[in-house]
């Protein structure tokens, strides 16, 4: 599989896995309006995933015309080691604090990345990112407000935010670590190296954390992370997620609504 297609699959997988995680809240949200909010966000993400998978499938079919790969094959028939999402987005939902913090970290990153990719010389990539950005701005706004609400809330909510930070902070470093397809994207100018987003991401995130009376995070902290979702080396949480998400299509291949 060519590296640029992998770069696109990384975007698709991030959106699909996080969209799937968010959809696990549907029907279980803390209050009705938030159940609807997170379901809407899940829907946005799955829509973005579809656009990226369709583009990836198109590229794969161009490269090997004998295949006839669809977005569904890519989403439902790949195995754990083939998924290229960040380890951050496959983490289980946990409580509401954990969920909104995960969204905040990821959407803040996605906003900066897509802002750059909207200028990609690959028109399909630019088009998907330009379209998605409008929705991502809502995701950032919504999750930022929740970080502040819970961080600068009660003793309990503040404590839960601290727990969430402890859970999720270890997975931040991966956001800025390049792998082979990042270098390829940068060389061909289709995309960028993630490190260039690092300073601005930390600035924006810390500004909200400060307002939320939460401890800020340092970009200097060395990462202890041995896993690399982008290389297909995932945490123990992705396998059961995929088992659930893919079981229907794998049991009844080619099934449709």
């Amino acid at each position, binding site marked *: 599989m060519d590296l640029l297609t992998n770069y696109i699959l990384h975007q698709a997988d991030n959106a699909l896995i996080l969209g799937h995680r968010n959809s696990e809240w549907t029907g279980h949200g803390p209050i009705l309006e938030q159940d609807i*909010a997170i379901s809407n966000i899940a829907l946005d993400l799955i*829509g*973005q995933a*579809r656009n990226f998978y369709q583009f990836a499938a198109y590229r794969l079919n161009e490269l090997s015309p004998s295949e006839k790969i669809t977005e569904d094959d890519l989403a439902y028939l790949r195995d754990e080691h083939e998924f290229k999402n960040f380890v951050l987005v496959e983490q289980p939902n946990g409580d509401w604090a954990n969920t909104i913090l995960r969204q905040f970290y990821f959407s803040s990153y996605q906003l900066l990345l897509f802002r750059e990719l909207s200028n990609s010389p690959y028109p399909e990539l630019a088009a998907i990112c*330009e*379209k998605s950005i409008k929705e991502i701005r809502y995701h950032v706004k919504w999750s930022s407000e929740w970080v502040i609400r819970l961080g600068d809330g009660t003793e309990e909510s503040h404590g839960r935010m601290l727990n969430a930070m402890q859970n999720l902070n270890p997975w931040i470093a991966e956001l800025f670590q390049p792998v082979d397809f990042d270098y390829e994207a940068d060389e061909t100018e289709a995309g960028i190296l993630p490190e260039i987003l690092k300073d601005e991401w930390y600035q924006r995130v810390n500004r909200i954390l400060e307002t939320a009376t939460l401890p800020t995070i340092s970009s200097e902290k060395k990462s202890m992370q041995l896993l690399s979702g982008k290389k297909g080396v995932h945490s123990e949480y992705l396998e059961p997620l995929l088992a659930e998400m893919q079981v229907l299509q794998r049991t009844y291949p080619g099934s449709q609504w």
Partner: protein
Amino acid sequence: MTKENIIEILSEVKDPEIPVLTISDLGILRSVKYADDFIQIQITPTYSGCPAMDMIQEDIRTELAKYGLQNVEIKQVLSPAWTSDWMTEDGKKKLQAYGIAAPAPHHCTHNGEDQPESCPLCHSQNIEMISRFGSTACKALYRCLDCREPFDYFKCH
């Protein structure tokens, strides 16, 4: 059968969620080409995950099939990105009459702070937001503090 006929037929296809609006009112129908018995249609999705888009494609095929037109190709075009600015003035009026507040006029900054002008039912400006996320991706939920009715607001996008 001319291209204009086809556009007229397609202008009847309704949004499945908001059945007073057609795909022309919404600015979803992007272009139509008709040559050698082959119809090529371009549509633009509103929100990335909008589930109505699949339904709309089905409805387009069904509508054209009624006139014996089956040689149809429908492509989703993502760029330039759909914006609520493409909703026609007529569409906005129909929306209000249906009880949904029309999107704030022209280029909002997408910081999520655009507001409806007034309650679509009693026209009071004494309104408050309940949630930025409503029953569909495109709508937010508001309440009128005068007539006390809730109403949907079609977000500026």
